[in-house]
């Protein structure tokens, strides 16, 4: 039984192997980029906009509000990265409606790549936002002795991101393929619906966790400023 789409090789030449994971990842990227380009060709802000532009606006505003709710003050900077994560993982499980398509996130290589990109983006955004010294100080919170524990925590968060997504996606495909051999028509449809639901949920969880990790890496600015007591509250009788 095939554990992941990595093992289904479509085309081979020497040591270059195109397997189902690579093929479906590229198909997904082409669909996302071509769809976005087609929709935003004639973008306008009057009342007569196309429905696709409306849908894209809803998605973009939703992602931006979620990022702002987590605590990142200027969400437009991070929306490219986090929005891409969310849309890629959501589409990869949404397209499971097409037959003979296997989600590329059902293979450990794709999810590890996504988790590694989050792992690199946390220090990147931290250094861009608050400087190298401040970012290294977030690693040494609350005490310098916690530095090895914080580093190990970062690595284990990355591994858990990869495995959570991989386990959820792989279990959907595996259970469907096991149930097909038992009850040919009815049960696999139900399990596909459940797989769609968990796929969307896992996309949201992945993006939100990436946002939380990035927000935790930037946090030193607010911790240094401390709570601010405005004079108007204390000295209100002088006004």
């Amino acid at each position: 039984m095939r554990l992941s789409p990595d093992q289904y090789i479509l085309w081979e030449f020497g040591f270059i192997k195109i397997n189902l994971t690579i093929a479906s990842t590229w198909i997904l990227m082409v669909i996302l980029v071509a769809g976005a380009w087609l929709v935003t060709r004639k973008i306008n802000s009057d009342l007569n906009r196309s429905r696709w532009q409306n849908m894209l606006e809803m998605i973009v505003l939703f992602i931006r509000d979620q990022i702002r709710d987590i605590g990142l003050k200027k969400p437009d900077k991070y929306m490219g990265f986090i929005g891409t994560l969310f849309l890629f993982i959501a589409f990869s499980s949404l397209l499971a409606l097409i037959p003979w398509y296997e989600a590329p996130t059902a293979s450990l290589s794709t999810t590890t790549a996504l988790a590694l990109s989050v792992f690199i983006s946390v220090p990147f955004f931290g250094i861009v936002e608050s400087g190298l010294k401040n970012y290294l100080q977030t690693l040494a919170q609350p005490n310098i002795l916690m530095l090895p524990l914080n580093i190990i925590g970062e690595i284990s968060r990355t591994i858990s991101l990869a495995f959570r997504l991989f386990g959820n996606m792989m279990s959907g495909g595996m259970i469907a393929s096991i149930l097909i051999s038992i009850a040919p028509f009815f049960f696999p449809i139900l399990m596909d619906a459940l797989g769609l639901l968990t796929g969307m949920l896992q996309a949201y969880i992945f993006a939100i966790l990436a946002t939380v990790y990035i927000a935790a890496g930037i946090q030193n600015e607010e911790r240094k400023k401390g709570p601010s007591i405005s004079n108007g509250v204390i000295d209100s009788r002088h006004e």
Partner: protein
Amino acid sequence: MDNLTMVGLVSIITAGFTMAIGGMMPSIAEGRAVVRALESIAQQPDASPTITRTLFIGLAMIETSLIYCFVIAMILIFANPFWNHFTAL
């Protein structure tokens, strides 16, 4: 009982036990988390989006250890390295 049979037997039994024992505590923890979330939504309905979002994040974290157990069970049954090693001899 030779090595091959022993490897297969222990793998299957271990996979079953992994899912059975590993599935108990995450389910209890998720149930308790949902109970508290429902109570707090009932107490403060206008904080419901925040509570729902935090609930889902918490559920995903709790479910992670369950997913680890599931992945180990799947590897033991379907991609067992010791079985492949012994049948390749």
